[in-house]
């Protein structure tokens, strides 16, 4: 109820929610998807593969 009544009565809040919405859209729908994939999750499915990859990275074996 607070949310519903509050949102209806908002003046300044509308601008802020618009900024929040645009910001979250840019962050999650643009930046996260196109620029910030989780490197290990995008390359490997299994934990063992991720461990092996990082171990290779850390021990300098290719």
């Amino acid at each position, binding site marked *: 109820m*607070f949310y519903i009544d509050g949102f209806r009565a908002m003046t300044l*809040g509308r601008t802020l929610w618009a900024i929040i919405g645009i910001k979250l859209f840019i962050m999650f729908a643009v930046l996260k998807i196109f*620029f*910030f994939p*989780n*490197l290990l999750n995008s390359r490997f499915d299994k934990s063992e593969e991720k461990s*092996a990859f990082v171990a290779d990275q850390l*021990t300098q074996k290719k």
Partner: protein
Amino acid sequence: MTSATTALDPSLIDWSRAQFALTAIYHWLFVPLTLGLGVIMAIMETLYVKTADPKWRRTTRFWQKIFGINFAIGVATGIILEFEFGTNWSNYSWFVGDIFGAPLAIEGIFAFFMEATFIAVMFFGWDKVSKGFHLASTWLTTVGATLSALWILVANAWMQHPVGMRFNPDTVRNEMVDFWALVFSPVAVNKFFHTVFSAWMLGAVVVIGISSWFLLKKREIPFALDSIKVSALVGLIGILLTMSTGDGSAYHVAARQPMKLAAMEGLYDGTRGAGMTALGIINYEKKYDDDKPPMFWELSFPKLLSLLATHKIDGYVPGVRDIVSGGYPAANGKTEPSMSEKIRRGKLAIAALADYRTAKKAGNADAARLAKAHLDENFAYFGYGYFNTPHDAVPNVPLVFYSFRVMVGLGIYFLLFFPLALLLVKRRRFEHLRWLQWVSLFSIPLAYIASQAGWIVAEVGRQPWAIQDILPVMAAVSNIGTGSVQLTFFIFLVLFTVLLAAELRIMTKQIQAGPETAEEEH
């Protein structure tokens, strides 16, 4: 440096660090105001509930709007740091995953449930819930924000002083074995209080500065003076506790990150009864292994550094050269090995990890056991194995040195500012002193500079470590294209600058509108 790390574009590390620093700096513009203003508005509402004087309701509602603007613009900006962990710092993320996972998960739960629930009551619940419940919601919003900060700072403190974990060579991850050792690590406890109290100080400066703007404009004078009374007291408590916990920080840094302390002081040659440089001009070209003077000029307090760092007037404080040479008594009473020895043992640890995994793959249990023993024996120095020379272990001394002086210098300024503001507002002099009102207004950016300088000391001072002693940034970084990091650096620069401009524009408009009248409220 070993082959794979030399294969990295050196600028990749710098750009990845720059991007992380940029996002952290912008994120930290919003967080301390949330923490500091939260306490101030909660005290104002407490006064309203206790006195039933409508002036406190009006005052609270105005500062809640400023809080709301800052919260709305800043919310979720910290998530970008987590994006960067997964993409730019994937080795690090995997290596620490289990340790970071718990505090960050708790932070997410607190941030989402506590803040989202009570912030709605705080903003929308006036006259819809009882005064007591509304007040509780305001306090719980502030407590929720502070607890969110706690878990982030616990995670950060672990990177400065890794405790409560065990490295598992099968998963190549650090696994938590003692959650409470993480939470109650003296570094974490001190860092949390130091950060939160400094945020109170920043919030207080913002309130006094904006209130002074009203005084300069000769508007809302009673409202402005009431706001200054509350915030000057919060600021005074905040700065006293910030300084007290800062002393604790120096002590822990001396014990656990002596290189950071040496950089903070521009100290190359250690000594007993070391003096503390109050002001100085550092020699940018100085290296630990040359004979150039570390300072062109300095003004020092005798013995003070030893007293702060060891709590003994003649305590030994090592300089950069001593930390490289080793052989000095460490805080744990043992003789500290030389940097060359640490590098040697680090390389043994890295080789042992490789041998262990090869042996496990081949099913050779004896060889795996032997390699594991070598790894355990040398793991404390694992990260040193990525260095070629001791130069790699030295942070940017001038940047840390000057940032420390900016932080402390401004801290001393605020230690004088708050009692003066409190005294003059109590004696009804503040409203007549225009110079003080201008000083208060221009103190707002100084509070942010002090806060950011503190983080530069903490984070640049611990370089090259992502995790102290066990993972340097050169090993933590993902081997991705430098161009993509540069591109996203500039995207963030634009995004955050737009957000900051939006915050300033909306906030300025709201401040100019002033507190609501009774008619406007309804």
